[in-house]
């Protein structure tokens, strides 16, 4: 894997990475509510809605994710629902981040185990 160049965008933050991964895991079922449940179940941390929605908006701004709008339903009081997808740029940033972390991890397994 090629090393990321300086022209690449900055790595996504920790919470952003988690959200991107959750979207990928949920595939076609990535909505606000399900994302929050996924993050709470998988990552084991409670997620405030405020933080989640703002993060989603911010990542859309960075072009990491995109969404399609579904028809409004009565259950939602006539409000539509957004289904999220990770964009190729989002995928690239995830890969870059993972690559960087892997390289940093290399050779440290023993040290960490000893400390533990």
């Amino acid at each position, binding site marked *: 894997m090629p090393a990321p160049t300086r022209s690449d965008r900055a790595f996504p933050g920790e919470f952003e990475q988690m959200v991107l991964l959750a979207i990928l895991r949920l595939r076609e079922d990535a909505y606000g*509510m399900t994302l929050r449940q996924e993050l709470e179940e998988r990552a084991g941390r409670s997620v405030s*809605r*405020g933080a989640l929605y703002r993060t989603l908006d911010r990542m859309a701004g960075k072009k990491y994710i995109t969404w399609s709008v579904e028809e409004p339903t009565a*259950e939602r009081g006539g*409000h*539509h629902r957004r289904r999220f997808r990770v964009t190729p740029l989002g995928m690239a940033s995830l890969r870059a981040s993972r690559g960087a972390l892997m390289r940093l991890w290399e050779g440290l397994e023993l040290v960490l185990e000893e400390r533990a």
Partner: protein
Amino acid sequence: MKRTPPRVLEWILARCLRDSVGRQDILGDLREEYATCRRSRVGAWGWYAMQVVTVGLPYLWGGWPLRREAGWIGDVRLALRSLARSPVYTAVALLSLILGIGVNTAAFNLVNAVLFRPLPYPAQDRLFDLGEFHPEEVCGGCGYGASLETYRYWRTNITTFAGLAASTGGEAIIDGGRERTRVPTVAVTASLFDILGAQTAIGRLLDPTDELPGSPMRPVVLGHATWRSLFGSDSGIVGRSVTLDGTVHTVVGVLSSQFGFIGRGDVFVPLTDDNGGTPTDRSLWVVGRLKDGTSANQAQRELDVLSARLAAARPDTHDGWGGVVQPLRDTLLHDLGDPLAGYMLLLAAGAVLLIACANLASITAARGIERTRDAAVRAALGASRGRVFRFAIAESLVLASIGGGVGIAIAYGVSAIIDQRFGAFLPPWIQLGIDARLLGFAVLLTGLSVVIAGVLPAHLAARVDLTLTLRAAGPSMTPGRHAAAGHRLLVGSQIAFGLMLLATALLSLRQYHRVSRLDNLGYEPRGVTAIAVQFLGNAASDPGTRTNVVEEITARVRALPGITDVAIEQERFLGTFGSSASPSIVRVGGRPDPISNAVVPRHGIAASPGYFELMRIPLLRGRTFRPDDRRGGPGVAVVDERAAGVLWPGDDPLGKTLRIDDELDSGWLTIIGVVGTTVISPLQAGRTGHPRIYTVFGQSPSAAFDVLLRTEGNVTRESLLRTVHEADANLLVTGVSTVEQRLALWISGAAIIAGVMAGLAGLALVLTAVGIYGLLSYSVSTHLREIGIRLALGGTSRAMRNLVIRRLVPIFALGTVAGLGGSWALAQLGGAAGMRLGAADPAILGVVVALIATLCAVAAARPARRAARVDPITILRED
């Protein structure tokens, strides 16, 4: 049925999210979650409210999560944490600020409502008051009005005004509501409602046709308050009949609750020839709206021309009379008293704020110097001077913002209480409440507090010398010379302001005491009971019947056991605001050059025989009224010294004649006696008083009158009421009270001033004591090393105590001198405001200085004792 979120909360959330991209998504998600939420109804509400806060507010503020720790927000967060760690400091600081800002905002709320707020009428700056005036008027600004004739002449001919309106106040017994009662009424022209922009809640306003002489129906428009209290807000009131003084009227409309009339009165009838008064009765209140593009000067010039023309056409009634135009606002404010009183209240409240801020600055500075090391460490780690300064000021900002918020809440609470308890006494056009000006004032105060209490300590913190501070240890760390001088100056100014407030408070208390003694009024109000009575129906119109009934009442009341004196006076005169303030023309008889237009205020009152004896008004010459001064006999009058001097300067009034042109028209009257001058208001005690002319009640009895009596032992209210009704069952008793109770209205004003001033002074003294204590304690803490060395070198404990006290002496001296100067200035201002507190009395000032000295001694006692008990060995070992 599925649960849906509370609409209000959803609406708030939607407002917070505005048009953000995720708005629909978030609202929809929360709806779905709410529907499946297993909490109780209340729990679900709480949950949704929490979402509004955690999801909505960050959108509103536009930054989530708040990561800008390095900016102002970070500083504020740090300040909050740091304040939470020092609860005592925070509590003292907050209390000082809340009191300071709260007291000021509340005071400003009152002053704002009266002095600064525009009147609640459309284009209020174009509303003007028009009145007639006569250069020989002797009552000197006792109020002027216009006659109906003059008003109509102006209305027809004036071109500078877009509209003119007139009104005149009165009282009437209203019947047809929940109870029969006496209410203030106003006769108005239909144009008045138009000029003041009145709207109805139901029905219609008055119409110009209602004023025509042959108008078949007698319409009445009710004010909102009367409609609510007397008619239970009955929506079917329009078209119903009510009687006013026995005459049937038809209710045509109810005014909207927003409308506040410029004068007294909440029941409006059309102004007609019947109630508009005689050509010489100049009691109409004329108000006009100036045309766009014309000035008050132009209007005045036109009025001068019109007055001259009218005087030429009607010399008998209008010779010498001119017209005056003045802004309506000025008239309304003039009636309330001098605006200086309001500014004085603001000044006093401002002094409390300054003391509170000085306190806060002292304790913040003390804390700041304690934390100098903290600032030094920050500076050493590379923080710029600005950064250290900003952090230091953030705390004051947080404190002052909380103080400002609570201050506004206090102001709101106070205005609600005033509205509820005193609303009925306030003129209807005064509207208390929070407006942009009040909020601006509170923000300004908050900012000022930050500057006073925060900037100085912050400035000191930012100027910290790294090496010195980091090297210094606790007990030897002394503040710089500037900081110490600043601190002393703050405490000195606290003493000065405290002294000023205390002096003003004591002067107000003395004034209250003087006023409440009810001395020097020219009569003896104590022990006099007054029964206010009114004739109803046919008896009201026949003077003969009235005289007989009144004599009957007098005889019956006199026969009651325990009654020593009985007399009658014209309606509700004593202890009220006098009768109408409109002037009457007095014609003096037998003079070669009669001053036919000399005017005295209608302080002439009708009284029965025995009146002067009962009121203990001294007879100076001649005689008082006798039972044989009856209706049908020769007309007689008694004048007071002042009237004698005005009407017959340098001459003996006995045997002279005069005539009063008013509605009681009693013909030519011969002066039979001169009595002492009286003043009605206790606030005027000892002053000259108005000229008064007393006529015989029985010769021209009015429809409403007071039965005055002095008693020995218990006479019950019931027995009095029964006796009056035995004389005539149709009489209406509108009140039984002592004259002292009536006078209490004036005294209550002085009591309120004294109470407010005493409260403010008490607050100021406590704050000052805390300030002095803080200064000295702090001074002892920072000079422990010096004290230790002095003690080690042979200084005595007594000397150390004196050392502390000596520090206070120059501060006390400076504060006292400044305070005395300030008190003198305040007393001048108060005197100018008509509060007559007595220019700074040396005795009072002596007491004040003694009190402040005691306060200083009490506050200094503990720090001085601490200095005396310092153990030099412990201190020097620490060094």
